[in-house]
């Protein structure tokens, strides 16, 4: 039985909360499972039967779905539009272009079909503008939700979501609305409105002229609305979502970095290794360096007295020994033998003392330069010495 329109409207108003619950269910899960009604009845009462008899819902297997018109109504009143993929919106490009071509080419043809085509063009343009508005509203809501992050999704997901909205919805929608892009639908609508503007003034049939006029003013208004939508996209949505993407990226970067802070190559800075001549601290550091060597306390170094056997050269004794040996063929041989006999080993110092006997006036010396030098060994040195003969002075 067909219900009265007022009955349906009253039903919708009375059970609005229940219908919103079902609407959300469908949006989140894709459809409403029939078992939902069991949970649902406790809270919202037995309305399942009316939902189907008023054709608010329709059954699809084990699930139910809102009928198209009611779904659209709820989208409209709740301002919760399902985002349309821009490629879906793009379909208007070809439908509007086709209709316009048919109107332009058949401008002198049958009036009835021309009137019908103008009406169709009007409704296609209307649907197009509405789709863009719905999408912009939805995208704005999504973006703000992403920004406030009430669902506490993690940063990686947030970046992915922001990138997803930008790449698949916002940027392509912006291209559709971009007036500087020759192939954009907005530009097409502008071309159409120029053509319609002429026809609304000079078309010979008044009814058609009025239709053209209605379409023209609608297109002018649409152009204005689309520009507004485009501004929201470029001025608000894109920067907002771009910022979400950037901020989230930064935080993602930091969180990832904090997992392995010592294993990551960080930005290079200057490693200040030394003072340079321009440094203000150079003077003080240099002064510190020098001062460490300036010892202001007197240092007294006391040398330990070491008892040593002092050897005193007894010249007279050795002179007498030498005189007793006269004549001596080799002075240094005699000196070494004397010292070795007395001290086991001749010390250099003692040998040099004995050498002073050579300068005594009591002895005559003879030295043959042709003779080879001989080596003698002291405790410290091996000395190369000449062979010197010694005679007693005055006696041959």
């Amino acid at each position, binding site marked *: 039985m067909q219900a009265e329109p007022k009955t349906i409207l009253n039903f919708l108003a009375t059970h609005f909360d229940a219908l919103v619950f079902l609407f959300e269910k469908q949006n989140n899960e894709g459809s409403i499972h029939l078992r939902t009604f069991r949970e649902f009845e406790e809270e919202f009462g037995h309305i399942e039967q009316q939902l189907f008899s008023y054709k608010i819902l329709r059954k699809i297997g084990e699930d139910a779905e809102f009928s198209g018109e009611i779904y659209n109504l709820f989208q409209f009143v709740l301002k919760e539009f399902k985002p349309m993929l821009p490629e879906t919106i793009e379909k208007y490009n070809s439908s509007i272009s086709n209709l316009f071509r048919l109107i332009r080419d058949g401008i002198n043809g049958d009036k009835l079909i021309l009137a019908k085509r103008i009406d169709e063009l009007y409704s296609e343009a209307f649907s197009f503008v509405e789709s863009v508005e719905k999408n912009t509203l939805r995208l704005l809501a999504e973006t703000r939700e992403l920004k406030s992050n009430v669902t506490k999704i993690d940063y*990686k997901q947030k*970046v992915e979501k922001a990138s997803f909205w930008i790449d698949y919805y916002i940027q392509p929608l912006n291209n559709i609305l971009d007036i500087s892009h020759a192939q954009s639908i907005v530009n097409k609508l502008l071309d159409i409105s120029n053509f319609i503007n002429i026809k609304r003034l000079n078309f010979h049939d008044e009814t058609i002229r009025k239709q053209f006029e209605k379409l023209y003013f609608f297109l002018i208004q649409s152009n204005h609305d689309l520009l507004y939508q485009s501004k929201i996209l470029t001025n608000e949505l894109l920067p907002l979502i771009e910022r979400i993407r*950037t*901020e989230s*990226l*930064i*935080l*993602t*970067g*930091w*969180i*990832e*970095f*904090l997992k392995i*802070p*010592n294993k*990551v*190559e*960080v*930005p*290079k*800075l*200057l*490693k*200040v*290794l030394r003072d*340079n001549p*321009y*440094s*203000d601290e150079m003077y003080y550091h240099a002064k510190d360096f020098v001062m460490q060597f300036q010892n202001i306390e007197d240092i007294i170094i006391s040398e330990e007295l070491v008892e040593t056997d002092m050897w005193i050269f007894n010249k007279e004794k050795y002179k007498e020994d030498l005189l007793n040996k006269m004549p001596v063929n080799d002075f240094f041989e005699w000196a070494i033998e004397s010292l070795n006999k007395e001290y086991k080993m001749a010390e250099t110092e003692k040998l040099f003392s004995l050498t002073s006997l050579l300068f005594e006036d009591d002895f005559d010396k003879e030295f043959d330069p042709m003779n080879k030098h001989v080596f003698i060994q002291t405790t410290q040195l091996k000395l190369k010495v000449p062979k010197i003969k010694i005679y007693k002075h005055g006696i041959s």
Partner: protein
Amino acid sequence: MEYPKQHKDIVSDLMAGKFLLRNDFNFDILKQNKDFYTSFFKESFNYGLQLESEFAYLISFETKEQLSRDICILIALLSYELDKDGKNFMDQLSYALFEYDQIDKYFEGSSYQELIKSNKQLKDVESRRMFYRTLSNRNIIEKEGENQFRFTSAIKVFIDFAVDFAQGKLEQATVSIDEDTSSIDE
């Protein structure tokens, strides 16, 4: 040969590891003589001059540079804690005045205690005060009174690092997801 004006100051500041900021008069002189200073630092000390729109600084090609790592850890922890506190961390890092006590509280309540305690510059209140002095000397922060500071534009070096790192990581994640998918396909 005639050197640019303020040559000594420019060289002293940069060689002390300072960031030369745009609001410094010497920054303009450096910018006007970019080629000269680039080759001057390269030829004299083998240092690289990094001249950005907001600041300039020198880099050495020393790989074990601990200061930069400590700064990254400080900013990373601060960003994380500010965000956790419900604040817009980028706005805060860009414009806000930080009180030492506020940062102390964040660090004391942080879940990154192990990392904080193992870092010589950040481990306790005293170390952090010393660290702020170093950062201030290098113009990475600007002190306000006894207990406050704000970051200078030099922070961009580290923020850019975080973005690059995240992109590298995300790319890695994407690659591994792709690899997983392709292995399923096979």
